[in-house]
């Protein structure tokens, strides 16, 4: 079955190199025995030389390979060492230096998959022989490959205008490249625009955010598309075509000066569920907040009296520049970009789901976002911290941590920001009302620059800390002093007893969740998200802002819960990655691709529906299928599906894999 000679009939000249990795491999595998066995047993396949060496990845080890390639005229290299994820590139580069095509080298793992996981030296040695034999059988069928080069369009699309998206856009625009920002809401700013103070420095959020928003709004390289959503993404790295739906604002931005008279005159008040977290009102024609960028308002059709009842037009009557245009319609805009940065952020965990905490049922239980608005000087109470009745200042306040996070009933993960947020709230309540403040926490997580110092500061201010998960919040008074209060039932795990603590106000430090439509977003852009719904980065440590789809980057809490400094860092990091791409002008992509042999293709179309990247196109005229190499990501699903064997894949062809199986089982064949 296995062909020992190549397609052109010549026997390959193979070099095999077995690494000791100090004692990492040699401690469990008899490396010399393996190398000797390969030399004698696999000679028939064309193995000319088989060596073992202390550290193959060292420059001396690489030179050994390079010299052998030159002196012995080797045409194939097999290295038995660590995982290809670690050093495949190292040995490929060594081959290239010796003028051997890098894809004619195969790295097989005898460390992560053998010496580190097995204990019996004989068994590990036998397995190493088998695994290297698999590599030798396989490498015979390798083809010389060249990376594909794709030009990069200099423009970038940033989806989401929160702090991460703003940072990314500004970095790119300042470097001189065009950026499109798409934001679903009428203004950029994101969650940060709702906050009053930011931990741990207690900077005013608006004071540090709005200058950046203004820069975005006025930057010559930035095209701002607010009140807009991405509808379709076509193309591939370097050359995406994105269709964006610009929802009708009913305000002509050429004439609008942002004077806000329309908002004053509009007779329709609407509860603002988004920006004011349901605590305040806006009009039917509105900007979410005074410093909104852009300054032009939008008309909310569902609540506009004119759109619902056919009469009113107060805004039109009072607009001094005739900017109101009720005839506007949604439009589709198409932009071409080379790279995309997704920074769509998070949704706040809906505290109603923890029914025992009474949010939505007990008036004076607030969510963290509600408290942000309550404490914000530009918020519905002008920054006065009062109960739901709007006048009473609380005398005792309980802040509950880990609401919806670190809880098997909801989310297992830690939402990162809630501890610091709870401490910030404690400080603000203490400072503005002098109330007694309790923090109920499971573990206090303040691991970042100046965070723990802030915790110490709040401790010194006299905030009381109770370690334990709150069991229930109730208004059912049982003991004297509980009437009219909210009673927090909690097990104080440090004191080892149950406590009932009566308070006037409860703030739930809710966790962060992926956007409710995160999975649709992932699908739209062809990237993956975890079961929770957070988008998945290329590597959790070494490649945190890239994704598995070339040309698509992620920044901020779309990837997982994050505080502001980390979101800003990620926004800048994603921009740096994109800039690197743009400046290179083109990108080399791994040549692991599927292709169709038109001669063999029967036009059955079985493969057509299998590709998630729409790389497979069917030509009706010729009745054959073709694969667009620029779209193909190389998963190989279509190759496995083709009943005619007409599809083949570079790097992982049928012949390579079948030969590898033969090699792996060589020792057991007899």
């Amino acid at each position: 079955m296995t062909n020992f000679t190549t397609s052109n009939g010549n026997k390959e000249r193979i070099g095999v190199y077995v690494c000791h990795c100090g004692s990492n491999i040699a401690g469990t595998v008899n490396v010399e025995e393996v190398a000797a066995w390969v030399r004698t047993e696999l000679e028939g396949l064309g193995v000319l030389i088989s060596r073992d060496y202390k550290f193959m990845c060292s420059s001396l080890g690489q030179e050994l390979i390079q010299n052998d390639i030159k002196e012995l005229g080797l045409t194939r290299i097999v290295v038995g060492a660590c995982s290809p994820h670690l050093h495949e590139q190292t040995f490929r580069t060594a081959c290239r230096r010796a003028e051997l095509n890098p894809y004619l080298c195969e790295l097989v793992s005898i460390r992560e998959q053998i010496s580190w996981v097995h204990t019996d030296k004989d068994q590990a040695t036998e397995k190493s022989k088998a695994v290297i034999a698999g590599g030798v059988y396989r490498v015979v069928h390798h083809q010389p490959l060249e990376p594909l080069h794709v030009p990069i369009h200099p423009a970038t699309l940033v989806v989401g205008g929160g702090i991460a998206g703003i940072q990314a856009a500004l970095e790119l625009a300042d470097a001189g490249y065009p950026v499109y920002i798409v934001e679903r809401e009428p203004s950029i700013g994101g969650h940060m625009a709702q906050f009053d103070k930011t931990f741990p420095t207690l900077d005013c959020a608006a004071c540090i955010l709005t200058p950046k928003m203004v820069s975005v709004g006025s930057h010559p390289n930035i095209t701002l598309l607010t009140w807009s959503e991405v509808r379709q993404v076509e193309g591939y790295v370097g050359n995406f075509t994105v269709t964006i739906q610009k929802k009708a604002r009913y305000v002509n931005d050429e004439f609008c000066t942002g004077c806000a008279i329309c908002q004053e005159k509009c007779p329709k008040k609407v509860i603002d569920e988004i920006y004011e977290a349901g605590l305040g009102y806006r009009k039917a024609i509105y900007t979410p907040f005074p410093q909104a960028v852009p300054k032009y308002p939008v008309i909310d059709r569902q609540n506009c009296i004119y759109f619902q009842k056919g009469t009113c037009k107060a805004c039109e009557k009072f607009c001094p520049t005739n900017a109101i245009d009720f005839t506007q319609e949604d439009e589709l805009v198409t932009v071409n970009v080379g790279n995309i940065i997704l920074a769509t952020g998070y949704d706040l965990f809906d505290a109603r789901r923890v029914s025992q905490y009474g949010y939505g049922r007990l008036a004076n239980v607030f969510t963290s976002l509600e408290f942000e608005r309550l404490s914000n000087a530009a918020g519905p109470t002008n920054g006065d911290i009062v109960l739901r009745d709007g006048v009473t200042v609380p005398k005792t306040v309980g802040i509950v941590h880990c609401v919806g996070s670190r809880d098997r009933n909801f989310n297992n993960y830690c939402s990162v920001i809630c501890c610091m947020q709870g401490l910030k709230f404690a400080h603000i309540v203490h400072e503005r009302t002098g109330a007694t403040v309790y923090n109920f926490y499971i573990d206090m997580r303040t691991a970042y620059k100046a965070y723990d110092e802030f915790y110490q500061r709040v401790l010194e201010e006299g905030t009381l800390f109770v370690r334990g998960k709150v069991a229930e919040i109730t208004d059912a008074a049982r003991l004297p002093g509980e009437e009219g209060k909210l009673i927090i039932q909690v097990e104080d795990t440090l004191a080892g007893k149950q406590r009932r603590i009566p308070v006037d106000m409860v703030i739930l430090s809710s966790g962060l969740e992926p956007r409710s439509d995160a999975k649709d977003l992932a699908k739209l852009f062809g990237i993956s998200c975890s079961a929770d719904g957070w988008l998945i980065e290329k590597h959790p440590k070494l490649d945190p802002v890239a994704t598995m789809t070339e040309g698509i980057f992620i920044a901020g809490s779309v990837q997982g819960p994050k505080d502001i400094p980390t979101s800003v860092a990620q926004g800048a990091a994603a921009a740096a990655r994109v800039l690197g791409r743009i400046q290179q002008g083109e990108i080399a992509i791994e040549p692991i691709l599927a292709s169709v042999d038109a001669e063999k293709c029967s036009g059955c179309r079985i493969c057509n529906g299998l590709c998630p990247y729409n790389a497979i196109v069917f030509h009706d005229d010729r009745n054959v299928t073709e694969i667009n190499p620029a779209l193909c990501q190389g998963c190989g699903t279509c190759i496995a599906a083709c009943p005619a064997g007409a599809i083949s894949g570079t790097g992982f062809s049928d012949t390579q894999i079948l030969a590898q199986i033969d090699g792996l089982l060589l020792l057991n064949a007899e």
Partner: protein
Amino acid sequence: MSDAFEPIIIGFTCNWCSYRAADLAGTARVKYPANIRLIRLMCSGRIDPTFVLKAFASGADGVLITGCHPGECHYIEQNYKALRRYLLLKRSLTQLGIEAGRVKLVWASAAEGVRLADEITKMVEQVKTLGPLNWPKWEGFFDDEIHSLVEIPEEVSA
């Protein structure tokens, strides 16, 4: 090796999740039996049922197919396609007289080194209780007869 039956199991892994899980098991020095030999593919969707048949025909006693968890495939949804093929393949294999326990599909994320090692250990134990497969050898059994059957007369192929 001792006289006790030591099965050989071929494991198909995907480049992004299960192969990385195997890497992680190594880095964490998690121990599992040496009976498994892994093949790295880009995706579990790449697994052609032929590979599994070939492994059995060439002397493997069991085949372990691994991939990313549903919803976490790096190629979006190709592991679902692997799942579909696996279910059909398993049925065909039992009809060919290969015990269902000789082939198994396991999801393992890049963070689940310990889980993958556990699954490998379990699989090895399972195949040990089943004993050797002893399928007829491929060579000779197949080649001559099949080639004569599929030989295309020259006038047709031309």
